[in-house]
């Protein structure tokens, strides 16, 4: 313990005292370059974890939710525009993204301890997992849906009668948000007993 304190004191001294050997220019420029490398590296690593390839590299995602996504309109459709995992499950703006990424450390914990590492465990947890996503989208007014589906540009005349009726009333007034009606749009639903509207 004493040696540790002595070591820390030494390092504090190095940090506190002005540099003897290195010029101010070297230190500022070096700091600047190191900053670019660290920040760039951090962002690159972050973006790497924000890809479908990364998500489906775990069998929990690949064999359960990813399979279900593949038959929905968000994966295969006439125009070939598609959503990948992070498009819906990770916010696009930086602040919200970092907040979600910090939350996701719980998911790393789950992976390490095998919370859903079998199909049975996944099915047992499905309602809880779904409820987290429903709550998140309800709280942020379905922000991740709206990244692509912008209400401003919806043409009700091109929608089916039922869709137009719902979108021009409940959605327009802000009384309901996307997730209120469109649960299970990209994955199979859990047991829906007691869920509002079901």
């Amino acid at each position, binding site marked *: 313990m004493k040696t540790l304190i002595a070591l820390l004191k030494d390092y504090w001294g190095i940090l506190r005292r002005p540099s003897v050997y290195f010029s101010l220019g070297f230190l500022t420029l070096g700091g600047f370059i190191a900053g670019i490398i660290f920040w760039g590296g951090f962002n690159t690593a972050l973006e790497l974890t924000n890809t479908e390839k990364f998500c489906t590299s775990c069998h929990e995602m690949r064999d359960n939710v990813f399979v279900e996504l593949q038959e929905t309109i968000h994966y295969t459709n006439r125009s070939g525009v598609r959503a990948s995992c992070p498009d819906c499950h990770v916010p696009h703006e930086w602040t919200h993204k970092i907040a979600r990424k910090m939350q996701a450390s719980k998911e790393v914990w789950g992976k390490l301890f095998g919370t859903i590492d079998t199909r049975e465990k996944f099915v047992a947890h499905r309602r809880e997992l779904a409820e987290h996503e429903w709550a998140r989208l309800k709280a942020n007014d379905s922000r991740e849906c709206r990244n692509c589906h912008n209400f401003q540009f919806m043409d009700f005349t091109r929608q089916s009668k039922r869709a137009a009726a719902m979108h021009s009333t409940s959605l327009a007034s802000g009384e309901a948000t996307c997730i209120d009606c469109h649960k299970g749009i990209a994955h199979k639903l859990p047991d829906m007993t007691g869920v509002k509207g*079901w």
Partner: protein
Amino acid sequence: MPFRMLPLFLLAAIGLALAAEVDYPLDAPGPDGRRPGGTLTQSMPAPAIANDENRDIKRERNYPDQPPTIPHAIRGYQIDMNGNKCLACHSRANSAKSQATAISITHYMDRDGQALAAVSPRRYFCNQCHVVQKEVQPLVGNSFETIDKILQDDANAARKP
């Protein structure tokens, strides 16, 4: 030696004669309807998959007990032990809000006619009876007449003479 082989030659000759004497075409033209043109052995290109009709207009039933057909697309509607997407609009509780047709009271009865609190399990799987329709013309003609048409024709016939 040649005499010994004679029955064999004869058999072969008779077989050939029989095979040649088929008086019907082995590769008959296929019946028009499901696959117009071509012959029975020919494989034709599959027709394009038609879209589901999505007009939200109730269709007439062909007979009183016909399960009504679904007038809208139902792609991705989940009906399993976890939930029934159809009931989100068509259940008796939700139909007022959604303005969708409520499922009939018979769907809340068991087979002995006893009323149940929820949709009867034997009526739960909507697609067993109710189906969407495609945007296609009927493949074959149909001369079926509804009972209303027959009654009307009778009334008209009685009035004329």
